[in-house]
């Protein structure tokens, strides 16, 4: 899932203070699970803005709303008339949601209400860890299912650097050395010799380095187009 984290209220206040009608718009999928930007958090942020406005003597109408997802139009289309009543949308969806809504909302600004952190998992309640970098060319079969691109601070491809200290990364004793984990895991799997082979310089063009990416499934697009062209069945919709 996409993990987000809350922005400091001072930063949010700087964004919203000059608007009159603000909607804090939550997304109830990924960022709700990580307690950053679901409808519940949107409600809390709206309350914090109202309190701050009262303190600063500003009159701002602040409300909140939430939909299941911000990354597909079908989820927010039904509430767009309501959303367009405001002069600022503070989206607590991930950055995808902010971009996606910005392109569809018209002349109303959409500002980010949270920081989008990473793609991660939930090892225990309240803890989220980065596990994938979305590099576009997965090599997890070569590294025991542990990603050196997302989890090694230097994205090393051929084994640990000299900075591994008691299984931890030189960047911080709170960070596991990915290569330590990879080696231990592959020993257990009996596949350590896979690591003997040199991984050549990587083609990063499948990653962000190749420019913004797009996946287009032609067979799905063709199917959808065909469905749209079909005549209504006799008797109309039920």
């Amino acid at each position, binding site marked *: 899932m996409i993990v987000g984290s809350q922005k400091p209220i001072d930063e949010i206040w700087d964004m919203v203070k000059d608007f009159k009608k603000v909607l804090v718009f939550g997304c109830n999928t990924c960022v709700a699970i990580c307690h950053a930007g679901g409808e519940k958090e949107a409600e809390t942020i709206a309350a914090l803005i109202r309190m701050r406005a009262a303190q600063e003597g500003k009159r701002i109408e602040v409300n909140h709303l939430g939909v299941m997802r911000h990354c597909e139009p079908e989820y927010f289309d039904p509430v767009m008339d309501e959303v367009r009543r405001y002069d600022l949308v503070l989206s607590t969806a991930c950055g995808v949601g902010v971009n996606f809504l910005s392109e569809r909302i018209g002349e109303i600004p959409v500002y980010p209400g949270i920081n989008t952190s990473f793609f991660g998992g939930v090892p225990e309640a309240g803890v989220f860890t980065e596990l994938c970098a979305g590099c576009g060319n997965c090599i997890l079969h070569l590294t025991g299912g542990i990603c050196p691109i997302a989890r090694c*601070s*230097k*994205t*090393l*491809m*051929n*084994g*640990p*650097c*000299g*900075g*591994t*200290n*008691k*299984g931890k990364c*030189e*960047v*911080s004793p709170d960070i596991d*050395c990915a*290569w*330590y984990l990879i*080696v*231990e895991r592959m020993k257990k799997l009996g596949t*350590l010799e896979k*690591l*003997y082979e*040199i*991984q*050549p*310089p*990587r083609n*990063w063009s499948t990653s962000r380095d190749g420019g913004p990416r797009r996946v287009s499934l032609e067979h799905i697009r063709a199917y959808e187009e065909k469905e749209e062209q079909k005549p209504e069945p006799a008797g109309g919709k039920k």
Partner: protein
Amino acid sequence: MKSGSNLERVILSGQPAVTAELGPPMSADPHEVIKKANILKGYCDAANITDCQTAVVRISSIAAAVIAFQQGLEPVMQMTCRDRNRIAMQADLLGAAALGLRNCLCIAGDHQKFSAAGRLKGHPGAKNVYDVDTCQLVGILKKMRDEGKQEGGDPLEVAPKFFIGASWTPMADPIDFRPINLMKKVNAGADFIQTQGIYDIAGFRSQMETIRNMGLHERTAILGGIIVPKSAMMLKYMDSSVAGVSVPKPLIERMTKAKDAAGDDKKKAKELQEAEGIKIAVELIQQVLETPGVRGVHIQAIEWESAMPGIVKAAGLYPRPNIPEA
């Protein structure tokens, strides 16, 4: 001969090689490099010119290497994977070769967050590169030199002839993978290896036994790392905080004893510890060189270049061999 560098010639001669380290200053003034180069000249076969070590901005390795070279000290330019992508790396390698440099050590580089272990501001918010890792960089140098090709495949009219080095931390976690790490660097094309500082001779010898069983000592020249200790505090710090370095208790006790012998006299405590540090360094050099499979030493007298002549002489490694170019 791959590069014809002095370091390569000494290694090929079979005599134990000696490399030193020269850290460029945080300054646009070349005089410190000139001064250090003149201290080290004659007491090593080549000196590593660090590449923004500890992730702090200094005179670049290539520029300082050229300054040292002009003083008659053969440099080993260093190149970290932290700061350049493969385009900048190869451009700099061509430039370095055009300027006459012939040794290059490939390293990952301290993470940008390191900032001299927090003693300086550094640039912890910098974007790191790591387009390629050390193994891959070694391979790029080899391809440029031996095939006359860039990483992407385009031809090079004149190939840069580098003697290719890499670092190795024999005793860091995961310890049983470290020999594989070395193997990969050798397979990629590392002609010489400089190790992390060794204090734990028994631990190092055990790793070297594995290396000999793998035959790696014959395919690359391993130079054992010696970090000259300056004080009991430094030894304790390295033991507790530097990855892959463990310092046996008796060495720390020796230094502590030297310090305590001075009582409250701080100046004397410094002198006594430095003298003991030099003694320890000389002993370590001898023990490392006695280890089968070792072809030399890489002596780091960090910000203490003036200690080098005495150490090299006391270790019986002076004068350095003079092997003319063929």
